[in-house]
């Protein structure tokens, strides 16, 4: 699934969601309950944040019995990297056009 960079950035612009994503990246799969314990955030709030992260493709849910485990999907960050490689080719092409223009301009 491809997600636009802005959806990924918006979902990570919230410090709580960022903390959840970082924790899942660092500690591996967790349940909502594990994420809620000692976090100072309510379980419904954690669930809501996980829903937004899931929508952006940053976490994936896996059901095991009655438990749902959430796992970070670091590969979902790839569009951010693509975005920078996009600008690299963009500016190289524009530089060529700038040089062409300069050749046509009067001193």
């Amino acid at each position: 699934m491809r997600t636009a960079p802005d959806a990924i950035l918006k979902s990570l612009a919230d410090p709580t969601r960022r903390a959840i994503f970082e924790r899942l990246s660092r500690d591996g799969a967790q349940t909502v309950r594990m994420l809620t314990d000692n976090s100072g955030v309510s379980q419904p709030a954690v669930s809501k944040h996980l829903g937004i992260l899931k929508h952006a493709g940053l976490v994936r849910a896996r059901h095991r019995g009655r438990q749902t485990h959430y796992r970070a999907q670091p590969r979902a960050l790839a569009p951010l990297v693509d975005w920078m490689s996009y600008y690299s080719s963009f500016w190289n092409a524009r530089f060529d056009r700038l040089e062409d223009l300069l050749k046509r301009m009067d001193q």
Partner: protein
Amino acid sequence: MTTDATRSVVIEKELPHPPEKIWRALTQGPLIKEWLMDNDFQPVLGHKFNFRSTPVPNWNGIIDCEVLVVEPNKKLSYSWGTMGMGSVVVWTLVATSGGTLVRMEHSGFGPDQEAAYKGATYGWQKFIGNLERVVAGLQ
């Protein structure tokens, strides 16, 4: 910050033209349009303007900018915001014996101002560092 290099695009080239001429190409609206994009740029500090390109699916083709630095024939900088991503473009011109050394740096990719204020800028900076480690681990 050591991680900046991986978040910026830099192009540096010596061009056989004087700085004054390159400055015109970088700061006169009709000339900018010829090589970059349609625009309502003015070389005035604080001037807010747009670059406009052809809209494509999921993007309206508009880049929101503000002039940040104007040092005639030497340095030009503007913010570059699009799709909720903010960044900064800096042009530096240095006269050489054969023309001008032109340097363009497009850097600081991150959530736009509004998003940055909503979610503590410091936290975001820290996160970007972590993000790079995560992405580096993918290679």
